């Protein structure tokens, strides 16, 4: 999350010391000492003039204070920008413009500003709170960005004004004049006179950093209110979240919107008493959602690539010297994991084994236009393997839930080495009690050489809603951050789809309960306990695997923040310090059971 740095707050009862005497000096405002002095004193209304400023030699009416503050702000920004660009403006101001009576601050400012700004520029003031933004007639494409760097910003203490000033947008290509083209790359903020004259350029100062923190706090407070069944408070907080979220940009904004949306749904459901387990309809919605977007998620960021690669590595090692292999994939999706494995097996020492792949899919999965998507995938994989001269067989199994599987459906054969693969499939089973134990029992029955499991590294299955919310907020913020840096290549649509995919997960974690809440992520440690108690022993994912996947992520991954780590034999991929997904491998503890 990158927070913008400016921190200007305005409050109506503090004076504004400035130094307008010499126009060639940029008006970077106040000395901190005068500010400090100003802070201690009180304003007394003496003849309509502000007493404090009168002490300094300026005559400003208290009633005009707000106005003066605003204008000073504008002036300062203009001069600040002018100072950075060139001194043309300053020389203009110093040599050609006539300044009248600086002690009458109000009119002096008027004259200064009218020198600088074109006549059609009008700063309209809007009555809003300090964190709300309002863009009347503002071009939609612009975005509020950082204002500028102010070295003394910590001491800058402008009063809050009933009117807000919007200033400086990171102007995008669409709403630009030709002169500004070259400024665009530097992310230069825009001087008011280059606002398009048709728009009513209102200037708002945005303190993104503060609102960012506030946004997080409000979200968490809202979740806690829901936790305590205090829906009235929750709703009140919700109304604040909207504008706060709007003031952010980039990853933070998207995350906030998704979470706010999910919270709103949850509140609604709780209020109206709509049972959160409204039958299978919402769970199938989520399912088809995830099926569709899973594919795009694969392409736009390295998470799935990491998952497939590490799982395949483990399977490859387990299948050393085996001549007949059978892979059971708990979630075949588009089958993108398997070409790599087939190719690696084709190239291994001693030649490839004969491969059998059992792909398990859900109903309504994949492309609705295809009559039998599973067959399509099988065809593709078979064609691929055929090209590589690898013996290959595919069978597809369609089940509503993994718990419905039995060994009959898998059609096991003698003499085969079996690998079971599950990428983001197991956590769903936790929604119905007993399912995961049943499936693990089935896995045992199959007698696999290796079981590869990839899951999200997070605990989104705690019993307390507020804790879950907290966890999820941090987790998905990190994921969205990483997506942001990925950029999604040339096609922004993939990025958008990935975000929607994640958004649907967020919705599920926050707004659903009971059988509907299928995104029940758990940490590797929790899964470890389950596997150990089900009779499995961990397989250490070797250092060669670690090296290779690190190479993969650094060479092919987009974005510098990805980190591959090894943790007790499991490999995790994370963004900077936060691990996000983890791959682990398991084998049976004893081979004596028939």
């Amino acid at each position: 999350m990158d927070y913008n740095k400016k921190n200007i707050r305005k409050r109506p009862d503090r004076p504004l010391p400035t130094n307008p005497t010499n126009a060639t000096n940029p008006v970077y405002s106040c000395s901190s000492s005068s500010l400090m002095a100003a802070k201690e004193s009180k304003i007394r209304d003496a003849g309509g003039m502000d007493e404090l400023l009168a002490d300094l030699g300026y005559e400003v009416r208290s009633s005009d204070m707000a106005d003066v503050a605003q204008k000073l702000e504008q002036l300062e920004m203009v001069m600040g920008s002018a100072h950075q660009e060139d001194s043309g403006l300053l020389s203009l101001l110093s040599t050609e413009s006539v300044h009248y009576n600086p002690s009458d601050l109000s009119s002096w400012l008027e004259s200064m500003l009218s020198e600088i700004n074109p006549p059609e520029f009008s700063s309209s003031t809007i009555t809003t709170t300090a964190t709300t933004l309002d863009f009347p007639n503002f071009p939609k494409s612009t975005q509020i960005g950082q204002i500028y760097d102010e070295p003394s910003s910590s001491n800058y203490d402008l009063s809050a004004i009933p009117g807000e000033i919007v200033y400086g947008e990171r102007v995008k290509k669409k709403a630009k004049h030709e002169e500004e083209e070259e400024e665009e790359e530097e992310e230069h903020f825009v001087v008011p006179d280059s606002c398009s004259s048709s728009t009513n350029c209102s200037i708002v100062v945005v303190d993104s950093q503060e609102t960012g923190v506030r946004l997080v706090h409000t979200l968490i407070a809202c979740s806690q209110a829901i936790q305590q069944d205090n829906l009235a408070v929750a709703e009140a907080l919700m109304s604040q979240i909207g504008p706060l979220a709007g003031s952010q940009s980039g990853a933070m904004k998207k995350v906030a919107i998704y979470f706010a949306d999910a919270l709103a749904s949850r509140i609604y459901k709780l209020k109206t008493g709509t049972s959160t387990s409204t039958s299978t309809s919402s769970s199938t919605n989520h399912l088809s959602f995830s099926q569709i977007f899973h594919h795009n998620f694969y392409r736009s960021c390295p998470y799935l690539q990491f998952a497939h690669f590490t799982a395949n590595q483990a399977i490859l090692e387990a299948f050393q010297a085996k001549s007949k292999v059978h892979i059971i994939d708990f979630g075949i999706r588009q089958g993108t994991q398997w070409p790599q494995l087939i190719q690696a097996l084709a190239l291994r020492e001693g030649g490839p084994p004969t491969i059998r792949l059992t792909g398990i899919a859900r109903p309504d999965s994949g492309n609705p236009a295809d009559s039998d998507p599973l067959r399509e995938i099988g065809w593709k994989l078979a064609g691929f393997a055929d090209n590589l001269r690898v013996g290959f067989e595919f069978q597809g199994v369609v089940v509503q839930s993994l718990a419905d599987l039995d060994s009959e459906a898998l059609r096991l054969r003698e003499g085969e080495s079996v690998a079971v693969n599950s990428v983001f499939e197991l956590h769903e089973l936790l929604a119905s009690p007993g399912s995961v134990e049943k499936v693990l029992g089935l896995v045992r029955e199959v007698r696999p050489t290796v079981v590869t499991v990839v899951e999200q590294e997070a605990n989104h299955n705690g019993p307390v809603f507020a804790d879950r919310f907290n966890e999820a907020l941090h987790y998905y913020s990190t994921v969205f951050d990483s997506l942001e840096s990925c950029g999604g290549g040339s096609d922004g649509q993939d990025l958008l789809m990935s975000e929607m995919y994640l958004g649907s997960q967020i919705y599920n974690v926050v707004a659903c309960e009971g059988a509907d809440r299928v995104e029940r992520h758990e940490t590797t440690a929790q899964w470890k306990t389950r596997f150990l108690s089900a009779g499995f022993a961990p397989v250490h994912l070797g250092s060669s695997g670690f090296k290779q996947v690190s190479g993969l992520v650094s060479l092919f991954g987009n974005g510098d923040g990805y980190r591959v780590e090894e943790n007790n034999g499991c490999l995790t991929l994370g963004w900077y310090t936060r691990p996000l997904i983890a791959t682990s491998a398991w084998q049976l503890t004893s081979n004596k059971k028939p």
Partner: protein
Amino acid sequence: MVKKQRGLSLFCINDNQDLLIEILTRLDDRTLAVASTVCKLWRELTRQDSFWEALCFRHVSPPRVRPVVAAMGGFRRLYRVCVGPALARLVRFDSVWTREELETQLQRLSLSLFSVYYYERLGARREDGRATASLMFLGEPVNVK
């Protein structure tokens, strides 16, 4: 390089394809690509996979890789899609591993990704229009032609 001897014999590189091939073998990827634009003969020659194979696998000589790569579209495509971009990154990439180690890994990784790429394109004809670019998460957008 033209030598005139008694006005009759000229030396033209295109008449000595063995020599030409020897020279082309020593070129790097960019020069090779540029060379393919010289004339039809050069284009034909530089499109031969052997050159690109040498570029892909400089240190490691793989026994069984050739038919596999050929089946998936050839070394030239492998280079363009995977190895080339990765090598470009290798230049500005400093790590704890040696250059050779990294290059070995790179070849293995390239093959993996290439297989995904090829797999995705297998079904591309049947899908609606948009060719899938499975390697989109690579830094540079991959040209799917």
